[in-house]
């Protein structure tokens, strides 16, 4: 008895250990076969042996590897990208990556590194990106520089580094991005920046460091692509220290969770005059006061960001801002668009006044001076426009992109956008539009390609609503309703023959007539999801080759096979979240579905309807026997043959007997 029990226990333990080791080896998720694997958060203590040796990309984050040795990764000789985020790594010994010649990216974020051996990064032929964010570094000297000559990116943010000083042999030849944000650097000296002067086109981030002193001349003659001092308390300290530098971008904004920042007086920006810069960001900085003097040293800028700067008006008598191309005035408090004094910036090509904190009045002719303007964003600015939009857009003859979405209401008059004949993109979404039936609001927009009318409560029964839009490629009518929920054959889409993409989701549609989209010969992408359609009306489309159709979240039960067979080429169809019948009456769909899995989008959500025996089963897994089938036919044929043969034999015997009697 005891023997039997012993055997049982041994067998049980054997089965468990087999299953356990097999479980560990197979748990990583394959992203791309033989190339990309994700082993995130699996409690692993070593690289799974089942990983293919030719793996190139490996996410091994949130596992457990307290120390790295030269044998840890030696199986993965083709590794290119390795993510070791939060693996509780403390010790990185010598030659850890000696077998990984192709490795170009190592991510060690969130590991408290107690030791990095001198040859820790030896091995890779050309290591390009090294991430040591939040690894407990107190000094840049902690990083061994052996074999880092080709380094392009070094991320050492969120550490405890107090000095910017770089060692003499720090790799500068290929370095393009040095991230030192959120460290403890309070002071920068000339000695600290000596090595940085050897870099080219560097992006240097010192965001979140409480810098209180920069030695005069520390950055003399330094050249950068981007310098980020975000969140600094006093920008005059920064500007004084970076005189005579060249940079394309200078980020001097701050953040909502930084307290105690000093408001900017005009004299604080004086040092900008000696800095060669194109693009300055001053987001969330407040000006005390904002005057013409504030702009004295901003005259050479091409791009200025004054987001959330507490602005109510820009002084109209500022001079010299002729070079400015892009101006960002989002999240300010202008009551009238004329208060931005657009004439001060005659060369603007991009203007953004979105998310205005007050109701913005667009007035008349306030933007007339902006004859070069190509991009105008006035979204989410509480605009109510009773007479839109020729007076408001007067002079904007070069406008290509206009965003008036997420506002209160627009009343679109006849030829509402006559001033902007070159418009290519028009976004009016999530704003109540009032359009009279007799007017052609868009009739001169012959170049318009994209029109967003989502959630605008427009009357889709207006036959000539889209007149003039002969080059329209994308039309979004999401959440607009159609009369009685039906798209008729005779509809507004006849005015947009070039349409390629049509969005009609959430339009409360019940049906689509059989020729509704026949005039749209170039149509390739249609979204009819989240409606109340009960039939898959593919006959409404003139050409079903290489077509994308989204019929998800409707009320379709049955789909005849001939509705699907015309889908050809690389067509994709989404039938998910419909109450599809999985019975013999729907065998046409079920058969086609299994034969065309490559055409199916969202197969996980394409399941049998809830109220029958196969409820919830994926359509691809359904197997039904309907009618006789092949086996049945063979059986029947055999039976017929046997009957015939038996009849023949009986007949012959009967005839023989008769003959003998005779």
């Amino acid at each position: 008895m005891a023997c039997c029990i012993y055997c049982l226990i041994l067998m049980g333990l054997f089965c468990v250990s087999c299953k356990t080791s097999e479980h560990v080896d197979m748990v990583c998720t394959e992203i791309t076969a033989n190339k990309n694997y994700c082993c995130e958060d699996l409690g692993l203590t070593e690289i799974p042996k089942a990983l293919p040796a030719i793996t190139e990309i490996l996410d091994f984050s949130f596992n457990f590897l307290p120390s790295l040795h030269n044998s840890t990764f030696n199986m993965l000789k083709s590794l290119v990208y390795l993510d070791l985020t939060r693996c509780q790594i403390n010790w990185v010994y010598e030659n850890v990556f000696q077998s990984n010649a192709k490795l170009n990216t190592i991510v060690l974020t969130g590991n408290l590194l107690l030791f990095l051996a001198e040859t820790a990064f030896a091995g890779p032929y050309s290591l390009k990106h090294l991430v040591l964010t939040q690894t407990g570094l107190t000094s840049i000297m902690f990083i061994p520089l052996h074999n880092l000559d080709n380094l392009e990116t070094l991320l050492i943010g969120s550490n405890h580094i107090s000095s910017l000083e770089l060692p003499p042999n720090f790799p500068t030849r290929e370095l393009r991005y040095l991230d030192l944000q959120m460290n403890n650097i309070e002071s920068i000296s000339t000695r600290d920046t000596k090595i940085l002067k050897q870099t080219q086109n560097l992006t240097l981030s010192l965001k979140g460091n409480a810098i209180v002193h920069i030695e005069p001349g520390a950055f003399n003659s330094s050249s950068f692509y981007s310098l980020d001092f975000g969140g600094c308390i006093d920008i005059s300290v920064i500007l004084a220290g970076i005189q005579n530098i060249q940079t394309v971008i200078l980020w001097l904004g701050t953040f909502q969770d930084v307290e105690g920042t000093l408001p900017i007086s005009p004299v604080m920006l004086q040092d900008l005059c000696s800095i060669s810069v194109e693009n300055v960001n001053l987001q969330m900085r407040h000006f005390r006061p904002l005057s013409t003097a504030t702009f004295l040293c901003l005259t050479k800028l091409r791009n200025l960001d004054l987001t959330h700067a507490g602005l109510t008006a820009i002084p109209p008598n500022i001079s010299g801002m002729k070079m400015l191309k892009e101006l960002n005035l989002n999240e300010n408090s202008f009551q009238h668009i004329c208060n931005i004094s657009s004439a001060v910036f005659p060369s603007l090509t991009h203007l953004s006044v979105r998310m205005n904190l007050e109701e913005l009045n667009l007035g008349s002719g306030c933007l007339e001076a902006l004859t070069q303007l190509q991009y105008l964003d006035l979204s989410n600015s509480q605009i109510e426009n009773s007479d839109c939009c020729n007076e408001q857009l007067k002079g904007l003859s070069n406008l290509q992109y206009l965003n008036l979405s997420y506002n209160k209401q627009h009343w679109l008059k006849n030829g509402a956008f006559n001033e902007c004949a070159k418009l290519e993109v028009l976004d009016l979404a999530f704003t109540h539009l009032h359009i009279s039936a007799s007017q052609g609001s868009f009739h001169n927009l012959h170049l318009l390609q994209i029109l967003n009318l989502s959630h605008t409560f427009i009357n889709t029964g207006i036959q000539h609503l889209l007149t003039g839009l002969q080059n329209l490629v994308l039309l979004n009518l999401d959440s607009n309703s159609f009369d009685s929920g039906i798209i008729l054959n005779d509809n507004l889409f006849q005015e947009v023959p070039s349409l390629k993409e049509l969005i009609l989701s959430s339009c409360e549609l019940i049906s689509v007539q059989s020729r509704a989209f026949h005039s749209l010969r170039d149509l390739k992408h249609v979204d009819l999801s989240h409606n109340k359609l009960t039939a898959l009306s593919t006959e409404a489309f003139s050409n079903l080759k290489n077509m994308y159709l989204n019929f998800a979240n409707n009320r379709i039960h049955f789909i005849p096979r001939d509705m699907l067979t015309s889908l050809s080429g690389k067509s994709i169809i989404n039938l998910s979240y419909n109450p599809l019948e999985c019975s013999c009456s729907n065998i046409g769909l079920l058969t086609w579905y299994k034969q065309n899995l490559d055409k199916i989008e969202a197969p996980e959500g394409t399941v049998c309807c809830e109220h029958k025996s196969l409820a919830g089963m994926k359509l691809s897994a359904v197997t039904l026997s309907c009618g006789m089938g092949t086996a049945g036919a063979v059986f029947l044929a055999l039976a017929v043959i046997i009957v015939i043969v038996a009849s023949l034999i009986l007949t012959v015997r009967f005839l023989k007997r008769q003959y003998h009697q005779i």
Partner: protein
Amino acid sequence: MKMLNAASFILVLLYAHVSKEWPTHTVCKEHNLEIYYKSCDPVQDFALSIDGCSRITVRAFTIRAALVLRHSIKKLFLNVDLIINGKSILNYSSTLCEPGRPRFTFCGRMKGEHIYYEGPVSLGIHELPQVSSLFSFLKCKSPVGLWEEGRGAK
């Protein structure tokens, strides 16, 4: 018999599957206020506490919160829906981070970083509603990020 019991016990231990539902944390337990929370994130719990439950006002109260990022913060949205007794008393949504508009210092922080916040928070409502004899329990509405407050009798 004893051996069989031991074997069964060992096998049960080895096969035991710990379900991954995060615990309900108690943030406040005062005579007139109880606040609990539970993480609906499928991969991790997070930490939250309020300084001085008895001193909470709607203007501002101090919290401390911490979590480890499982994704880098490129875009971050905040949606808050506070429902008491079937009535929505607070509905708030805001974009905290997006490319080109980093409102906070934690925008752009990387996967694996530990984020810790200690500081004031404002609810943005004028007064806390008076409720009596209400015991609220929390259940996750969907795998990530949404809470639904259920009701139970006290």
